[in-house]
Each structure stands twice: as structure tokens, then as C-alpha cells.
């Protein structure tokens, strides 16, 4: 296919997923050769795999200040959320409360509770920055509430929910509820302490941290009923043969991410300044860049322009970005809608940095962003 030459891609969609760290992937490959055995096998290779799995479990649990026995390895973040929300004692029926800015997997798990188990769902409204405020939470839950799902770091607009302030409301208003926190975007980006935050269940995934795809984890201090029972692995909470190499790679990736997290914010801030200098009317969505925002997240609105054409122009310029969550294409973001924003407000673009984002990439990204905006303004806004 003949095409105009496409510039080198600049990957600024680390909120969707990240490029695997080559060092971690090499170690993963090496361990696939040595730690391949089934961790439930009683022979020496099986015991070695089990020891490696426990090491990974301990390191990950240690990162979030939780008991290693509470950590269950899963196939990814969606499965971790599903296990937390659906892994309830047999026959439990009640109300589930989810914030209006949750990831699609939380909404789908709640829908499963409603459709298959006779639950009722309450939606906790979010403020204009996409975060849950204590008063809104208090109003949405009650004694019948058995599950409350509030994410830690918002995946589209990057706001960090004040879980420490919200958890006491859950305890007082809904004492029988488990507090399920989707920490997929936040793990490795901000320090997390499940005890200090008073979290019951925290969902995590490796692929957002330059780790391998196909592994996640759920830390839980409440009992979990398995969704898939299998061979009784993971303390009977999640069936299926575990992968010690993947678990170790997850731990490696999470630790490397946390150690390198200041780079994310530096690159994000540089990108934001670069864009703001070139496109003066651009608006930052959500909370200001600072301690209340995920360090890798930049979400902007360019007034007067449509999102998708701008995204397409960015794509032709090699800038990989997104208009919202990668898991909710083809419709206006429900998160922005819940924040009171509309498609007509302007072009909504999410740009997310990673550990491999360089200053050169960020500068070129800002320049190409400005070029794309200028071209779209000619096409879109220049007509009488």
C-alpha cells in the first residue's frame, strides 16, 4: 500500500498498556527454562517453582503493605476485579455500589450481580474532576450494601480517589460491605498501603507497568469464593496452574515502576507544558498535575474541535494516544459524561507517559500535537 511516509511512532498511550521492559522479559524467558514446573508438584522442581511463586507473592504484598497470604495471582486486572466482586459467599444478595467513573470491568461485574444473582446497583456520582467525594458516597450506600467499588487512580482522567477518607464512611454506613479498589492504574505509580487506606480488596495488573501481559493479582483480606475452582490453587481461591516466572516478572515490574515513578511525572509535566505553550487554549481535564493526580496521566481538551479527527491526525503523525479508555471505544466516555462533560466541549485526548518515555519523545509529541490541532482547525473551524 502506498502511503505517505509515517513518522516514527511516539507511544503516549501507557495508560492503555506499556511496552514490556526488555530486562524483565529476558529474565522471564530465562526463568521459563528453570522455573517451569508446576508449583503444586511435590518434586524438587515443583518445590523450586512454589518457592519462587511465594517470593513473588511476598514482594508484591510487601509493596502494598499487605499480608502475603491475602495475595491471589490471576490472569489480569479484569479477572482480579471479577474475583473481588463476584467471589462472595454463596447466596449473598444485597446492593452493590460502584463509582460512576469505574472501569468497564467493574460495571460488568456489577451487572452480573444484578442479572444473575438478584442484586441492586447504586452508582456513586463523581465530581467534576472524576473523583468520589465523601458526601456522595455516604448518600449512595447503606446497611444493605455488600460491595463498594471505588478505583484508586482513575484510568482516563488520572484523579486519585481519597480512599483513606472514604473507607471510614463505608465502615460506618455499610458495615457488611467489602471495599473493592481497582488499583490497576495506580500500582507502581503511587505508594499504596492497604492497611492505611483500609482496603478490603485491591486489584492489580502487570501489563500497565512494563511487565508481561497475562498476569494480575488480587490482594484481599476478606474470604474469596472462587469463580473458577480448578485444582484448588491459590489457597482454593483461584484455580489454574500458576506461573512462577510470570509472577516474578510481575514483582520485578512493579518494583521497577515504583522506583522510577518520578520520571513519569517529569515527562508528563514536560509534555503538558510543551502542549500548553503551543496550544494556549488547551484545558487540562481533572485535578491539577500534583500529588492528587496519577503521575503518568495527562488528559486535555482542545475546545472547538472533535476528538476523533484529532486522534486520527495524531495517528498519522505517529503519536499514539487515546480519546479515553482503550476498553470503551466507539462511544463518548462515560467517565467524562459522569463528570458533566460532553462531546461538544472539544477534542478530548488522553496522553500517558511511561518509564521509556524520553524528553525527545515528549517534545516531538507536543510539537506534533500542536501541528495536528492547527491542521484540524483549518479543516474544521476555518469554514464560515
Amino acid at each position, binding site marked *: *500500500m*502506498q*502511503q*505517505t511516509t509515517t513518522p516514527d511512532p511516539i507511544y503516549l*498511550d501507557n495508560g*492503555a498498556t506499556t511496552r514490556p521492559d526488555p530486562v524483565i522479559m529476558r529474565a522471564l524467558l530465562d526463568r521459563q527454562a528453570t522455573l517451569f514446573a508446576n508449583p503444586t508438584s511435590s518434586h524438587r522442581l515443583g518445590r523450586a517453582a512454589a518457592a519462587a511463586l511465594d517470593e513473588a507473592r511476598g514482594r508484591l504484598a510487601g509493596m502494598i503493605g499487605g499480608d502475603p497470604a491475602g495475595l491471589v495471582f490471576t490472569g489480569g486486572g479484569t479477572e482480579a476485579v471479577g474475583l473481588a466482586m463476584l467471589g462472595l459467599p454463596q447466596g449473598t444478595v444485597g446492593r452493590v455500589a460502584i463509582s460512576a467513573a469505574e472501569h468497564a470491568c467493574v460495571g460488568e461485574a456489577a451487572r452480573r450481580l444484578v442479572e444473575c444473582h438478584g442484586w441492586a446497583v447504586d452508582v456513586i456520582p463523581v465530581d467534576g474532576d472524576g473523583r468520589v467525594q465523601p458526601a456522595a458516597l455516604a448518600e449512595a450506600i447503606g446497611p444493605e450494601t455488600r460491595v463498594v467499588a471505588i478505583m484508586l487512580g482513575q484510568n482516563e482522567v488520572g484523579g486519585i480517589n481519597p480512599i483513606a477518607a472514604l473507607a471510614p464512611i463505608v465502615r460506618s454506613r455499610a458495615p457488611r460491605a467489602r471495599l473493592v479498589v481497582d488499583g490497576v492504574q495506580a500500582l507502581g505509580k503511587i505508594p499504596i498501603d492497604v492497611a492505611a487506606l483500609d482496603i478490603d480488596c485491591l486489584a492489580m495488573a502487570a501489563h500497565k507497568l512494563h511487565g508481561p501481559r497475562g498476569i494480575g493479582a488480587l490482594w484481599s483480606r476478606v474470604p474469596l469464593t472462587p469463580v473458577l475452582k480448578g485444582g484448588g490453587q491459590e489457597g482454593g481461591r483461584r484455580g489454574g496452574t500458576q506461573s512462577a516466572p510470570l509472577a516474578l516478572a510481575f514483582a520485578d515490574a512493579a518494583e521497577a515502576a515504583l522506583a522510577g515513578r518520578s520520571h513519569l511525572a517529569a515527562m508528563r509535566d514536560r509534555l503538558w507544558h510543551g502542549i500548553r505553550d503551543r496550544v494556549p487554549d488547551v484545558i487540562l481535564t481533572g485535578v491539577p498535575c500534583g500529588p492528587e493526580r496519577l503521575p503518568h496521566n495527562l488528559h486535555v481538551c482542545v475546545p472547538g474541535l*472533535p*476528538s*476523533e*479527527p*484529532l*486522534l*486520527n*491526525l495524531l*495517528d*498519522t503523525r505517529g503519536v*499514539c*494516544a*487515546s*480519546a*479515553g*479508555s*482503550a476498553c*470503551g*471505544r*466507539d462511544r463518548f466516555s462515560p467517565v467524562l459524561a459522569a463528570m458533566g462533560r460532553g*462531546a*461538544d466541549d472539544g477534542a478530548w485526548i*488522553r496522553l500517558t507517559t511511561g518509564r521509556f518515555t524520553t524528553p525527545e519523545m515528549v517534545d516531538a509529541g507536543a510539537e506534533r500535537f500542536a501541528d495536528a490541532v492547527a*491542521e*484540524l482547525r483549518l*479543516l*474544521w*473551524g476555518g*469554514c*464560515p
Partner: protein
Amino acid sequence: MSADEPGAPARTADEVLLMGRVGELWLKGRNRRHFERSLQQNLQRALSNRLNHVQVMAGRGRMYIAVGHPADAAEALRIAADVPGLVDIARVERCEPELDAIEAAALALVGERWAGATGSFAIDGRRTQKTLPFTSPALNRRIGAAVQRATGLAVNLTAPDRTLSIEVDPRRAHLWTDATPGARGLPVGTAGGALLMLSGGIDSPVAGYLAQKRGCRLDAVYFHSAPFVGEGTRDKVVALAGRLATRQGGAAAARRAVHRGPGGHPRRLRSADGGAAVSAHDVSHRRPAGRRPQARRAGDRRDAGAGGEPDDQQPGAG
């Protein structure tokens, strides 16, 4: 075209023979030869684009497809069933047009296909010409009795569970048990050409397919209104063009037939092998002057594709 296949290569022992029955072509009087030749060529191209050692031969109201590799038979059947012009198509056994030979072939066929079957059967035998020394009822009775003895199945002529079909002409007999419905319609190319305004929606490719089934050979034009639609839509249009191309003997992949016309002018293109008549063009496109942005914002920006169809897949977030 003669009833047999002049110059046809000798059939090998493990070769599989498919027979397609030609539909409306019989209605076309003196044009029949032209129609049959088009169908033969379309079938040959569609099959040869994907498979080796496949030969299409035209008979009287029938297309015979010799498949050199038996493992390709199912794929050949699927491809041929998709090419407009055949009413149905079946894997057939061929034998001499004599009752003894037909009976032997019938027993071999049902022994293979109906092994372990229960229920009832029927024989649907017919002669194509009255010069044969037996009648169709006599053929059915003889073969039916033999099949009943061999299989123990009951005869049911009104609602059989399975049917053995036999067609006998003065030169040979064909037998089959299961026929796959064909695409029907007329062979592409027999009713001239048309230019299809192809978009990423569902209407335009369906319209194109229906036109193909009435014999139209298509060229397709696609207006890529970048940046108002994304590259994903263009990829989909290319895939759609490829699907349409296979039905008129074109290349399976139309990707190479797509390019950006210099200066934004669409160009008529053919693929490198000369087979693809469907091509998608890509012209730079600007919003017509005077059209206000508000007109697009309200949700009709989805009609940016040619023909104003809704685009059912808007690429967006990565």
C-alpha cells in the same frame, strides 16, 4: 460448449470431483454459451487464487471442478458456492452410464457416507436424455433395492432422512448425497460493469454483492475523508473490497489495489495479477465549503464515508 471436456487433463485416482448446477443460465437462450464461459472463468479464477491443481470444466448446464488435492475439496466447495451463478454444488462420484456400474458406485458411496445411519432414504435418479436404455423409475427401483439390501434403511419417498441423487447422461453418470446451496444469480461480468461507492458501512457492500449477483462486474471507489474517519475504516473498506473481489474472480487481497491517487484524483486500478477488478481508491477530502461544523457535531460525523452510510465502526481510543 460440448457435453464433455475437450483437452481436459486425465483424472487421477484420488482427485475429487465437484459438480455445480447452473441456474438461471438456462433461461438465456443463445447467450447461454457466453454466460457459461463467464461462470467457468470466474470459478477458475476464484479457485486458482487460493488453491493449486483445480480445473473447472463446463458441461451442459453443469460446472465440473476437478480438485487435485483431496484435502482441498471442502475449501473448493466453499469458494465455488460463493461465486454467483450456481444453484448448488456437490461432491460427486462419476461412473459409466450403465445400471451395473451405477449400482456399484451407489453402494460404494452410501457405504462411505451413510455408514451407521438410521432412518429412511430415497433415490432421486433421472436421465438427461431419453436415448438411454432404461427409464428413471427403473433406475430408482433398481438402485433403491440395492441400497436397501446393503444398508437396511427404510425407503421413504415423501420425507426421506437422506437422498442419493443420480444423474445419467449418455456419456456418464454422477452420484451425490449432499448438495451445498450456491450463491445463485448470474455470473459476474455478464451484465456489464458498475462503479460501486464503497464505504465502511454495511449497505454499500451488500448493494455491491447484490449487483454482482445480477451479473455486474464492480469497480469500487472509496472516499477516505481523513481525518474525519480513521485508518481503521480504510482497512475495513480494503477488506470489504477483497471480499467482493473474490466473487468476481479477483484476488483475495485487494490491499495492493488500493493507493492514494496523485493529486487526490481517484485512479482506476487493477491488481498485479490482473485479476482484481474491485479496487478501493483513496482521495484526500476536505469538508465542502459552506458546511457548518455544527452540522457534523450533532452525531452525523459518522456519515463521512462515501454514499452517506452510517459507519458501524468508528475507530477511536487506542
